[in-house]
């Protein structure tokens, strides 16, 4: 899996490409947590636009970040879910804790609209 992490204001945007399974989740978790240690980062947005597969190890990683971010008083959001990823999201109940948006812009607008 290829990953790009970029800070947009107080939000870390995680752009992933490929398949999010147990093999991919380990290094991604380490990368995200290193950035979460930065004081200015409060929220995390997972952009799934180029992710065509996710299993329970993938959402275990997402859920783990949700817990860490909540402790900092921030939010975790997700956007651009393809059907296979959406299905696993819904089955896992993740959608009740992590708001899902159609696009990255919609997610960021929602986040900053609420906090601003």
């Amino acid at each position: 899996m290829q990953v790009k992490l970029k800070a947009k204001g107080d939000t870390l945007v995680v752009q992933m490409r490929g398949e999010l399974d147990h093999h991919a989740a380990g290094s991604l978790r380490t990368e995200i947590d290193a950035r979460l240690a930065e004081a200015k980062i409060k929220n995390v947005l997972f952009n799934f636009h180029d992710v065509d597969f996710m299993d329970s190890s993938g959402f275990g990683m997402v859920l783990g970040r949700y817990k860490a971010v909540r402790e900092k008083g921030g939010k975790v959001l997700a956007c651009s879910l393809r059907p296979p990823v959406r299905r696993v999201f819904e089955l896992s109940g993740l959608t009740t804790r992590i708001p899902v948006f159609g696009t990255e812009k919609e997610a960021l607008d929602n986040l900053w609209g609420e906090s601003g």
Partner: protein
Amino acid sequence: MSMDNYLKLEIPAKSRNEAFARVVVAAFAAQADPTIDEISDVKTAVSEAVTNAIIHGYENNTSGTIVLSATLAGKRLEITVVDYGVGIADVEQARQALYTSKPELERSGMGFTIMENFMDEISVVSKPGQGTTVTMAKVFGRYNAEQA
């Protein structure tokens, strides 16, 4: 008319083989002309079973061996994932949604729930110290056929 067919694959318990295993089964199952959603379900279920063998069966000891086999009979795909690892003392508990024996590894406890929801049948046979066998089956086109 599809012919009956089978595959048998032996792989070490390395996490990079999770993707390999699910792609192999997906390519095999393609002979039965499944829908994209059905293939996606099969890939996810295989990924869960193989990941369980690696993390729980062998506790990330990569020298363990996983045997993956699959058969196709008409539209029915049956998949078996075997490990010779630590086994599961209480299978009922392991299959419960959100239960995990390894919360410290950020396991979601949803692996078996996904396998149950994405496949038509699943059975889990395990013996502590000897290993675990997960058998799953799915009949392609079942929902279309039932509607017709």
